[in-house]
Each structure stands twice: as C-alpha cells, then as structure tokens.
C-alpha cells in the first residue's frame, strides 16, 4: 500500500491505517528509536507511541512524506524517553556511544526562546546543509538526526571512522561560523 492510500485510511479513521503504517514503517521507527534509547523494549514502546501520535494527528495533518513524518515523531518521543530515563539507564545499550559522540558534533548555539527565532535558526541550518557536499551533509544528518554511531556512518560510506569524525568536526565548525555570522548566539 502506498503512502497516499495509508493517509487516506487515517482520514477515513480506519484502524487499518495503524496496521499498514506499522507494517511499512515500524522497523524504520524502531531503528531510529533504538539508536536513541538503546533498549529494544523502550524502542518498541516509542514505536507504539509513534503510531498513536500519528493516529491522533492525521488528520488534520496530511504529511507529504509519511516515512519522515513518522520518523520525526519517533525521534522526538525517543529523545523525550531517553531524557526521562537517562539518570537510571545511562550506560545501557549502544546508544550511549552515540550520545557521547554528539557532544562534539552539535553546534554550540544557544537556542532562542522565541519560536520564530528558533524557526529562523532551523532555516539557517537547512540552508547551510544545502550548501554542503552531499557526503558531508549525509554524515552530519546521520549523526545529529538519526544519531547513528560514528562507526556505523563510516561503514555506510566506506570511509574511516576518523574521517567521519573529521567531517563532523568541520561541519560543526562551519555551521557555528555561519550561525555566528548571522547573529545567533554561538
């Protein structure tokens, strides 16, 4: 079943929408979630919650890209869950590696409180990504969005881990420079 048909099921309030979404995208969401929470059980719960959120939000939302839409929900829920259980669960699972690696990757920019400013920040980051080489952009997004461990990113692209780290390092520096230039508090 294609995405448009699944979305129509949501709009028709057919519970098949959930089943079809799960069939098609649960694995994807589970992978994203597992990379963040580091536990199969937690990841599974996040996937279930993701489907519930989708059910509750479509309609009114009509996502252009259901995969990314669900992935975003799964990511957000997983980050929330990770935060909630960090103190108890830190050290479990593979995700810790990925989280630790993030420390040197995320741009050190103070997020604006204002929603509009935050959107402006996001626009700048998106524009920045559009200016980068494809490999660099992919590596960066795989790290900061999918939270894929460096070693896995390296495998995906057939490059060394240190080159991957180097790319991330450079991307961070460039991004910070751009944001600073645009007046964001870096």
């Amino acid at each position, binding site marked *: 079943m294609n995405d448009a048909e699944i979305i129509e099921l949501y709009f028709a309030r057919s519970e098949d929408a959930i089943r079809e979404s799960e069939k098609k995208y649960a694995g994807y969401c589970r992978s994203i979630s597992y990379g963040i929470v580091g536990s199969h059980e937690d990841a599974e719960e996040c996937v279930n919650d993701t489907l519930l959120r989708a059910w509750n939000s479509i309609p009114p939302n009509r996502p252009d*890209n259901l995969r990314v839409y669900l992935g975003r929900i799964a990511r957000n829920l997983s980050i929330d869950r990770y935060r909630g259980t960090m103190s108890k669960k830190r050290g479990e699972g593979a995700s810790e590696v990925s989280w630790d690696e993030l420390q040197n990757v*995320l741009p050190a920019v103070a997020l604006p409180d204002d929603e509009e400013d935050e959107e402006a920040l996001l626009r700048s980051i998106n524009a920045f990504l559009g200016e980068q080489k494809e490999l660099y952009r992919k590596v960066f997004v795989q790290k900061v969005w999918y939270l894929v461990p460096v070693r896995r990113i390296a495998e995906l692209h057939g490059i060394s881990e240190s080159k991957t780290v180097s790319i991330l390092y450079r991307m961070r520096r460039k991004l910070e420079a751009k944001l600073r230039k645009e007046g964001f508090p870096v």
Partner: protein
Amino acid sequence: MKTENNDMLQALTGLDERWIEEADPYAGPKSDGGVKRAEGASVIRATRLRMAAGFAVAAIVLVAVIVLAKQGLPGFLIKKPSDQRPGGGGTTATPTQALTTPTPEPVTGTPTPYIPEGTPTPTLSPTPYTPEGTPTPTPDIGIVVPDPWAEHGLLPRDWHSLSLAELKSREYYRYLSPELFTTYRYNVMTQSNKQGHYEVISFTRDLNDSIWENDSNIILVIVREKEDVKNYEGRRVNALDLDAYAVIDNEDPILQQDPEVFYSMKYSPIFRYEELTDEVLKHRLVHHEEDGETYDQIWFGVEAGDYVFEYLFRGTLTDETATLFIPGVGEDQLQPEELSVPYDDRQY
C-alpha cells in the same frame, strides 16, 4: 536561552525532510540498520583495527614527501600544495492536535531488529590497486605509487616493492599488524641517503582520494634501524631523544626552524589510547589554517626492538580521532614484553 545539547538535538527534529530522507541510513537495499549497534566490543575492536590501518593508509605519497624532505626539502610536509586541497525549513513534526481519540489497537509486534533494505555492506578490498601508467609490480605486491606524485618528481623512480613473503621475512614485520598487509594496499620503499638506510612502509585505502584533499588522516611508517637513526643528522635525532621531547616547547629552536614536531616515546605510553588524548600531547600538534580549513599534524616516533617507527598523523585531531590513529601497532598487536626497550639502553 536554552543551551543544553538536548534542546538543540530536539530542535533539529525539524530539519528539512530533504536532508532527512537523503541521509536515511535505513533506506534502500538490505543492510543491517540499527541492529549492529547492539553488537559487542569485538566489532568495535575489529573496526578500530581496520580503521587504524585505514589511517595509515592514506599516506603513500607522503612517504615520498618525507623522504625528500629528509633529502633536502625540510618543512615540505607542512606546506601542502595549494592546488591539491579543496578546500526549507521544516517544522517540528510532533503532532499535538488530537481529534477524537479512538484508541488504536494496541500495536503489537515483536521487537525484531529492523533490517533495512539496500545499504550495501561496505567491504574493504584487499585487492592491490594498480593505477594506470604505473609500472606493474610483481604479482603479490600490494603497492601503488600514485602517478601524479611520481610525475611531479615527488617519488623516486627507482622505488621498489617487496612482496608480502619478502616483507614477512623482515624482522621488523612482527612489529606491525599482519592485518595491515593483508587488508590494505601497501608500499615499501627502501631509501638510502648519506644519513643512512631506512625503509618506508605506507598503507593506503583509497588512492583516488588525494591525500591533500582528504586530509582527515594520514599515517606513514618509517622503519629505521636504530643504528641509522643514531647516524642521522639533524633535528630528528634530537627529536628522537626522549629528553629532548620532554623539553620541546614553542621556544625551541627546532620548532622555530620548522614547526613540525617530532616525538619519541617509549612504546608503552604513546600506544595507550588514553595517552593520546593527553593535553600535553595535543599541545604538540602543529595547527594549520588555510583557506578557512584547519588541520593538525603530528609526528611521533616509537622504538620497537632494534627499530624505530616514526609515524605521521595529519588531519583533524579530536579526542575521538586521537584514539584511532595508531596503525597496526598498539595494545591489540603488541605485547609489552615484545617491545620493551630499557630507556637506559638508548644510544642516540
């Protein structure tokens, strides 16, 4: 202002879906997706070994540069050829609007690991690479000398390679991981000059990627017999002295003449990963900035039996990469008793 990394992380959820889709590590043909993340230390270890070797690898050409630097172009290495170096907003997707709230059927589903489709498993090819126009070496030699470097006279035309069998017969071979030679392309050059005789082994993983363009990591290994080192004149002799290392600082005339920094340490400290992140060590890096790009360079030497191994790292050193740049020599490959050279026995 919110400053926590986690906030930034969450904010990034709204990245443009083009980038999210493009970078999707779980898309496409079958791959192992997230499953491998749960794999154990053996994978990490194996990967580290492969990567460590990979770093060493990119260095084929630099070897020659070093050699020439020693033969009269000091400082060349730190000056990269300028012509060879490159240099829609989404919204948060968390839906909040709930209409009627029919409870969906509980989503069951075994937490089976997701096996995405399509990402081919990268493999490292041990196949020797022979660039066009390069004299074909004897069959079991995994060597390459990139044409451009030879064309520019940066490599001696009379270089020769050793076969793996020949290499194994070399006594120093035991100090280098066999994995290096069986997995990666390598080049062995014997060099002689008035300072003595030495051999350079370099490993490379992707010769199509210019070292200077791909400056993430470069490692080469120069193997000398200690006797040659002793006879070698100039700064490296000083640098190979542990006491000299200890006192080198920015005022050191060696550094003033040439900002390359040479290290010599006994095997144990430098090959302990944690030591490589030591602030003191990091401060020895030569830091370059050109065209808005920055990179780091560091030399260090290590004694092993009757040999001295000199390594070059060039790239961006971070705490993470610092743990990675030892090719083939390290805790995994060497046992302390194999290498222990009493400091007092050093005769430089």
